[in-house]
């Protein structure tokens, strides 16, 4: 149902994803409310805000990953290439194929490095040269030199930073259009974190990236656009301010944003 042809001309839209008045619920608890944001094509958009403000819920809504959570439901419209992801008949499996995701904790499969990367292409009926695709994906993830001699070793045996880059390689092997990253560096040391950030800067030539981060420096360093969220008295998260990263960090319009980015929050 998600049809590639409809949005054949990417230049026609500046935004890949657009959220219109989105609210997310867990049972009777509203986790985020009335979100109106847009994600620009081939840019890095950072979602920042205090713990519990619904950043993860929101990013996991963008590829319907949160459908897996019992009692979760979303209201409003989540447009991907101007098609509503929550419209009846839209298959979340097809959505996730085009909107990939990298998780907070590296979660390689307990398989070889090669099989980790080949997993996505295999389940999606890839017919080309798998060896080439695996090498290409690992090179794109800046991991090839580290693992080219141990493609048959377990992906679990790599270091944390390498595992996360393996997960990125695995994601780009199915050639999604958007890569969602849910705090991808929170379990990594500073050096691995920097490697991932450099990788993101490299990947945005081909992909649209959305990253949730608790690390203010990371948002400032690595992103083009920043969305600042916080939560109200009802504990529902909402967007305070959305803008160029430089503007958000140097000249925020809202006091809440200024307090948060300058570390005076709470």
């Amino acid at each position, binding site marked *: 149902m998600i049809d590639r042809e409809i949005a054949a001309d990417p230049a026609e839209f500046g935004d890949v994803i657009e959220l219109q008045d989105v609210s997310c619920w867990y049972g009777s608890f509203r986790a985020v409310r009335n979100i109106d944001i847009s994600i620009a094509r081939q840019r890095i958009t950072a979602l920042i805000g205090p713990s519990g403000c619904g950043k993860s819920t929101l990013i996991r809504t963008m*590829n319907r*990953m949160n459908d*897996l959570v*019992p009692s979760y439901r979303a209201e409003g419209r989540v447009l991907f290439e101007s098609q509503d992801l929550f419209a009846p008949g839209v298959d979340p*499996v*097809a959505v*996730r*194929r*085009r909107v*990939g*995701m*990298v*998780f907070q*904790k590296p*979660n*390689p*499969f*307990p*398989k*070889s490095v090669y*099989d980790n990367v080949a*997993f*996505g292409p*295999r*389940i*999606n009926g890839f017919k080309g040269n798998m060896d080439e695709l695996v090498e290409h994906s690992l090179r794109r993830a800046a991991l090839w030199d580290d693992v080219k001699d141990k493609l048959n*070793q*377990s*992906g*679990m*045996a790599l270091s944390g930073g390498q595992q996360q880059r393996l*997960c990125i390689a*695995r*994601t780009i092997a*199915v050639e999604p259009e958007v890569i969602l990253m849910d705090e991808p560096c929170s379990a990594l040391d500073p050096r691995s974190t920097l490697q991932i950030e450099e990788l993101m800067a490299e990947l945005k030539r081909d992909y649209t990236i959305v990253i949730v981060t608790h690390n203010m420096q990371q948002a400032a360093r690595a992103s083009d656009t920043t969305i600042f969220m916080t939560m109200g008295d009802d504990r529902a998260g909402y967007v305070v301010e959305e803008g160029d990263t430089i503007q958000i960090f140097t000249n925020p319009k809202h006091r809440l944003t200024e307090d948060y980015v300058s570390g005076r929050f709470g």
Partner: protein
Amino acid sequence: MSAFSPARPVARFEPAVMRRKFTGTLFYGACLAAIGLLLLTLVALLVDVFVRAAPWLDVGFLTGVPSSRPARAGILPAMVGTFEIGIIVGVLTFPIGVAAAIYLAEYASDSRLNRLLQTNISNLAGVPSIIYGILGLALFVRALAMGPTILAAALTLSLLILPVVIIASIEALKAVPQAQREGAYALGASRWQMVSRSVLPAAAPGIMTGIILAMARAIGEAAPLILIGAFTFVTFLPNPISGQYTVLPIQIYGWAQRPQADFQGISAAAIVVVLGLMLVLNGLALIVRVRLSRHIQW
């Protein structure tokens, strides 16, 4: 950070390092004693059985049929009976048990009905085997008119161990981290692809362990089979779907209750044969396990 800091309480620690270390050593000793006791009992049992069995264990015993004279008695019909039952039980319970577990763990929503079902299956695993014998007699032998055959026995034993297989498989599936499922989904996997290529291979070792234990139980059962018509004296190789049969535990039971010392001896020899058969079946399960998790490298 905060301007207000409560008064620091007066520190009074009594580290008692020696005492804590002693407690640790004590616990270590208790664990060692437990495993020692276990091993000792097992070894004593095995040695005793093997010593009694040794004079009787020969090719003639393995290839012969039961006889009223111990020296000429053999175990072949019972061995074949147990083997046939083992194969049928394995072929039935493996797919049905695992499929039921996959449904309950991966497909069914976490509803009250689901939890009720799982609780009931756990309870079924604790029902005495003789009850399954009564069920097998009423259902398979009589209602479905299978008569007292290998097939009826295998079906009865399958019912007996299915709950164990299902519960063990559910536990193994639940032990696979949710992050593995999300990882597969994030690459565009359908639910079945996620289950078959990610969760099931990762859970395979645990599932196979459950099946091995359940099979061992099925093969060792005598009580329900007595009820559904296994014989103690069968001198021909059993046909799975018709005619009389016996199995090793029943053969052992039959011989062990005879007063003559020689029958005690061949009874011990039969026990050794059961142990051997169990090893063979576990070996088969091990091969399946290795094949299923061929690509799994934690």
